[in-house]
């Protein structure tokens, strides 16, 4: 049995907006083992990026509530002083590849200076920081002298490699990848996924891989968590989720994914993702759920009471959990 590296318990993050409170992440718990990759899959507005921001404690100013606990190797990190988190945890223990960050590279600062900045702020010496940056560039398949170049001299795929190099530079345990290949072409995407696999094996990294794409998730995921409207609806080993999806939303999502090599009839989930300001009562998926429509005994249950997390029998070593009244 491998060790639990990250233990996330009942975390919540709400935003205040002019229209009301947005419950972007609402009571989510999961564990991440050492060396494990957990893919968090959800559509836009499911709260998956907010969850990523919660884990590295970078969030927007309009946050009205942050609650719950996150333990990294047994130590609570969500409520520790920001100064301590910045010095000891961010970059060093938990690093992040934020969404579309390759476009956030500063165009007038050399790659090397941008890469070493967080290390210098943490008190690493200048020469050592530069060496760490060059080592990191090398391990993502880029030349060491790239530190002297500017972002506009690089292609999209190279910029994304620089961002990945930055994330692993300080040898973190956990790397959070938020849509690391969005806006890249398919072949470049495949090259980046190959790189992420290689880094994972080489450095025994744990990834939290945030994506909307179930096919892409299977490129890295040992385990998969499915989010819907701010809630975790299903989590389990990749084999269980892909071959035995149990939550009606997961089932709908999987049958809507086009496949190239196999023939299957595609279907779709009618309706739209609900607003997180005023989400449906009970199970947030019930207005779109085909089972709720068909089965009378679910009336008064799914639409009123929040579903419990039920453990299903699974093949993988990770527990297969589903938040659905069908299995109670």
């Amino acid at each position: 049995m491998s060790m639990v590296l990250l233990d996330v318990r009942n975390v919540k993050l709400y935003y205040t907006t002019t229209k009301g409170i947005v419950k972007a992440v609402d009571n989510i718990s999961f564990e991440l083992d050492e060396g494990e990759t957990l893919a968090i899959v959800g559509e836009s507005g499911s709260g998956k990026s907010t969850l990523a921001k919660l884990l590295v404690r970078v969030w927007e100013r309009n946050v009205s509530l942050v609650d719950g606990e996150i333990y990294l190797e047994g130590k609570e990190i969500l409520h520790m002083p920001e100064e301590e988190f910045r010095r000891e945890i961010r970059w060093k223990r938990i690093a992040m590849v934020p969404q579309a960050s390759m476009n956030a590279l500063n165009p007038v600062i050399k790659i090397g200076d941008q890469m070493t900045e967080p290390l210098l702020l943490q008190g690493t010496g200048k020469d050592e920081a530069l060496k760490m940056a060059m080592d990191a560039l090398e391990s993502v398949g880029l030349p060491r002298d790239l530190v002297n170049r500017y972002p506009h001299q690089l292609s999209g795929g190279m910029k994304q490699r620089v961002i990945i190099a930055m994330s692993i530079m300080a040898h973190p345990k956990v790397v959070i990848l938020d849509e690391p290949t969005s806006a890249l072409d398919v072949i470049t995407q495949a090259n980046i996924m190959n790189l992420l696999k290689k880094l994972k094996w080489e450095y025994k990294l744990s990834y939290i891989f945030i994506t909307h794409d179930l096919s892409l998730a299977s490129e890295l995921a040992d385990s998969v968590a499915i989010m819907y409207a701010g809630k975790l609806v299903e989590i389990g080993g990749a084999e269980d989720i892909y071959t035995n999806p149990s939550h009606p939303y997961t089932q709908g999502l999987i049958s809507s994914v086009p496949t190239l090599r196999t023939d299957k009839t595609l279907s779709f989930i009618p309706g739209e993702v609900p607003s997180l300001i005023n989400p449906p009562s009970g199970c947030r998926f019930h207005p779109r759920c085909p089972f709720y429509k068909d089965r009378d005994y679910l009336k008064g249950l799914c639409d009123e009471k929040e579903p419990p997390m039920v453990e299903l029998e699974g093949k993988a070593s990770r527990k297969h959990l589903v938040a659905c009244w069908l299995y109670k």
Partner: protein
Amino acid sequence: MPGVFEDTPWVRKDSLVIAHRLRTYYTIKPGLFAKPRYVKAVDDISLSIDRGITLAIVGESGSGKTTLGRTLIRLLEPISGEVYFDGNDITHMKEEELKKIGFRRRVSMVFQDPYSSLNPFHSIHFILEEPLMVQGISMKEREERIYRALEEVKLTPPEDFVNKYPHMLSGGQRQRVAIARAIITDPDYIVADEPVSMLDASIRVEILTILKDIQQRHKMAFMYITHDISTAKYFSDYILIMYAGQFAEYGPFRDVVKNPLHPYAQSLIEAIPDPDPSNRLRERKVAPGEPPNLANPPTGCRFHPRCPYAMDICKKQEPPVVEARPGVFVKCWLYVKR
């Protein structure tokens, strides 16, 4: 036996839409007195699309697929080659002449981004009515057609939608309005440029199903431009794979996808994951590097710097297009009998 072009035997002369050795370049002027340079966005592309047939144009960003689509509906004018529509040579026709042959009515387009392709100040009713007003169709018929189009894209009941504005609709609903607008003039030919790439997975399939239904019911010639072969699979009959502005491979969709011949096509197809948990245990064998800058493309075959099979000749000479398998055409030296 209907004729084909001799130099491009995959192009049939009796098709509704024909492009023959098409080249569309953009000009860039580096300085006031400097010699202009060209970005060869579409460089020698030939194809034909029959009524009732969908051709998928697949390529990465910068491969020229959007430029090709826009040239084929004459939003752009090519610098050489010919474009034919229903027997008319429309390559260099002026806008008035295009209107005279009914080209603008018989052709329409669905764009990628439903957030920017609909005017936010216009109601759905007006967005759909405008193309009909231009054609001088009576008010009674306009109303009928608007309701019918909304029903076809499954925005029902239509009276709930006609008075809304784009911002009141979700992304999927907006894209359906864009499709309704494209079909309202009852066109013979539709170009859809990445119509589902901005939408979430669960909505994507719904839009694809609607497009497929419409295409089959109206027997239109359909051009589906995309970077995503797996969505194209659901309603494409033929596929043309482009690389760096040029032809790479053409043939029946399933045949090409199952057994691609061009090294670029092989890489492109290998790069696409299907949802399968065993993917995480293997590395994908794809070409390294990224597509070239089209202002200064590589000599010879444009794919040679990334190609695992590159030979000497690939660096020096542009490959010809050959029929490597019955019906499958490839622009690659590997398949040239020498």
